[in-house]
């Protein structure tokens, strides 16, 4: 997978993950182009498009579009499954996820994605394992916070 974008129906980007390094300008150009192309597509159209030398796979969940770019001989249906898996994970983690969850906890959304995919390749297919990894990392953070709070604020 080359990159993954999440954007709202209004065309606002909610998350972007690039697995190949591109200059910022190009990223912006690609994002803008894809958002407009996908938003103009009608709901009943299929989820795939040919774009430059890549294939774009996208799917809409509620008000959010999930959009992935894959290479010519990658499997489109598998990519849809990955998107779906990611949505399931978000849903499990946040408890029936909505767009606001992702807006306000965007870093968590990134962390979950990073446990699912690494370098654009699927990393863990078990939902349980992913959630466990995220939970234990969150725990690590929580353990740090109370004891560090006063210290951090120079009051300890």
């Amino acid at each position, binding site marked *: 997978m080359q990159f993954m974008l999440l954007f709202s129906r209004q065309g606002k*980007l*909610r*998350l*972007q993950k*690039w*697995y*190949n*390094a591109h*200059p*910022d300008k190009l990223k*912006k150009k690609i994002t803008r182009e894809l958002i407009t192309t996908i938003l103009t597509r*009608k709901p*009943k*159209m*299929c*989820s*795939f*498009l040919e774009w430059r030398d890549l294939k774009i796979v996208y799917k809409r969940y509620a008000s959010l579009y999930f959009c992935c770019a894959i290479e010519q*001989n990658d*499997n*489109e*249906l*598998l990519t*849809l*499954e990955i998107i779906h898996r990611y949505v399931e994970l978000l849903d499990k983690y946040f408890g029936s996820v909505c767009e606001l969850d992702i*807006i*306000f906890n*965007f*870093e968590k959304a*990134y*962390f979950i994605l*990073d*446990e699912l995919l*690494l*370098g654009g*390749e*699927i*990393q*863990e*297919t*078990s939902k349980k*394992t992913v959630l466990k*990894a995220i939970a*234990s*990392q969150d725990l*690590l*953070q929580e353990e*740090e*916070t109370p004891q*560090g709070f006063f210290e*951090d*604020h*120079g*009051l300890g």
Partner: protein
Amino acid sequence: MALKKVKGNIERMFDKNLTDLVRGIRNNKENEAKYITQCMEDIKQELRQDNLTVKGNAIAKLTYLQMLGYDISWAGFNVIEVMSSNKFTLKRTGYLAASQSFHCDSELLMLTTNMIRKELNSQNQYDAGLALTSLSCYISTDLARDLSQDILTLLSSTKPYIRKKAVLMMYKVFLKYPEALRPAFPKLKEKLEDPDPGVQSAAVNVICELARKNPKNYLSLAPVFFKLMTTKTNNWMLIKIIKLFGALTPLEPRLGKKLIEPLTNLIHSTSAMSLLYECINTVIAVLISISSGMPNHAASIQLCVQKLRILIEDSDQNLKYLGLLAMSKILKTHPKSVQAHKDLILQCLEDKDESIRLRALDLLYGMVSKKNLMEIVKKLMVHMDKAEGTIYRDELLAKIVLICSQNNYQFITNFEWYLTVLVELAQMEFGSKQGHVIAAQLIDVSIRVQAIRSFAVAEMAQLLEFYASNSQFSIMQDVLYSAAWLCGEFASELKEPEASLIAMLKYKSLPPHIEIVFIQNILKLYACCLMKYELAQDYDKICGMYEVTQRKLENSLKSPEIEVQERASSTLMILEVVHCEVMAKKGVKTEQIMEDFDLPIDAEVDKGETVAMQLLNLFNGDLNPVAPKAQKKVPIPEGLDLDSFIEEPDFGENEYSSDSDYEIKGNLFVKDSNERNSKPELTEEEKVKIREARKNEQMNNPHYLKSSNKKYEDIPVAELQLDVPLKVLSKRSDKYLKFDNGAKKSRKNKRSKKHKVESSTDDDNELVNKTLMVNQNLELPEGATLSDSEGSVGNPDDPHRALDIDLDLPGLDEKKLADSPQPESNKIKSKKKKHNKIKKDKSVAAAAAAAKQPGDDGENKKKMKKSKDKKEKTKKKKSKELSNEYEEALGISTPSKEFP
């Protein structure tokens, strides 16, 4: 001092955190930019503080702003600071910011090497995981080289969480630092048997990706993967394995035979569509790669096509799309199996979804035959009428032309029909960019099918007469180009060349490249008419014609386009010379007639003596179609070096003046002349003209709201007195279809159903037969033939070509790679990888030889010395062992052992 610190910290407690920022942005929708500028200032302030927690908060906010499209590269150093914290929370923030904002060319990355190494070796698996995840986004060649050993060590970590990430990370390392592949490969292979399914699946992923780019080197792993495929049930992994086999089979057909059975079993049994689709794709790849000697090969194709039919019939648009996509792959090798499902594909042409219709169109070219071509094209024409969206229409138009013209117009039984279709397409006025396609077809058909010429020319003459130049769409203008050319070139076929000449003279303000063609062909038509009049000794008409033509050409002289000016002026000169000549002859003749009344007028006019004949000689000679590759086949004359400079460019003087300077100069000059020419010289008269032109344009513009409906009547089209009304004209091609059907049903009706062609039935049959002859003699330079191998000019996109490197010349290849910017395309990378690997194979052999005969180092070894860095050298002994083991396993030549 301490008080100040406390004070600063208390102030900071009121700082915005990330949630505040997000909320703030949402509450300030009107002046978001202003709000964010303010926030940026705050963040910069926060980053100046010593406290890492504050910095972490700032970086978290920056990461959010980065997503919104703001540049945060300036904060790179601060990101690294936060990454280096020993608190997991801050590390998490820091590494996330890094993975989002760092670029692999960044010089900052140098600072991270040791920090990341520390994290990789951390006791906490999540520290290492964080570092790996983040690194995968911005790994550079330097980082890959420096950290490859550390990551490799992680492959043997006791924690599956780390192993899994490390395995995937190795792929990124290979891409940036191919030298790492060889020492790492045995370990990677081990991971295929890892007890943890996640690690195993990651290893399959990496090897699959490597093998897809360069399958040759992974054939030896086929047995391992074959075992995995038949024993595992994890669909995610199966898909990857099956994809891998799809890449391997073209190299080893025997593998393909072995695969068919398990794959067909999977196709039968699986309920997962993604797996089914992958299986079908691989079966198709297998069947394409193995020769037709397979016994149950037809059955497999049949199975695939059947399953695909189910996909296409599914209500899910995605499956429909993919089904059609896979069908088009089968179509290339097994057209007959796909043709059986013609009904389904034609049905998909009616689908609501444009992308599905486009896929169905792709398949269509394989569906046509002589019998159904007209019918299919008629359907497509209906689509043309209905379709909204220029892109789809363009695609349709291109496909119509493609399916009709394929294989030298193999399926066309009636060229009159095809020409009518082309004309109709041209008449569908829309903003298409495909006008040139139609134009090219019109010319191609008329040149190559001699029998159709008179019909074509008549059609073109009609087009020229009916279409005024105010047509605003380029499609018609492109067609006018070919209409003008055809009428001029085959003027002798015209029934009324005068009418066409007059029609062509009427056109004003054509695009320059079309105007040029008009001027040239006006001369040809003039010559043709002149001949006619001269034979009839109709000198009044000659004078009239001369005057009109002269006027038009003088108009063209005023064109701003230099090419148009030049053509107009030379044509004008020719015209004048010819006219003087004719008039001189007329003088002589009238004298003769005055002297001797007995001479009959027409008796002495001989074709050869006419002035027109001399003019016509200018355009003598037959035109033959030129083969598409002809230009490439022209041999380069001896002694001509295309790469050498004719005149050495002078670099010395211009060194300091950059390109932009030139641009500015050029622009200044153009601007200058424009201003001088256009602005001050607008006289009252011209203004009136411009105003009129604008009104005229507005009137003809369908998108412009007209003040009153009456003006419609002023549009010239309505005034035309046509024998056949325009509306009927646009459906003319249907008649051929009816005619065709009629001919099949009853021969008796033929005569009555015929339109236009006023010839007897026998003549008609003859005509049809004649029109079937497509001239296939293509002009080529002497000595060249069409089937000549292309040599170095072949298709550069063919992946097999790219991989076909002469490995005896490693230096050359290396240089090429060094020239190319840091590998971005995987192709280059894989080339390099392969190259390196084989080079190392050789170098190992050379090393072995060297052990026996010291001092006899081959060239390869020297090269190897250069390319390998010091680290590698120290490991040489180890790598030799590894490579030996690897070579043993390679056994590319004897895979049949594994597949009896």
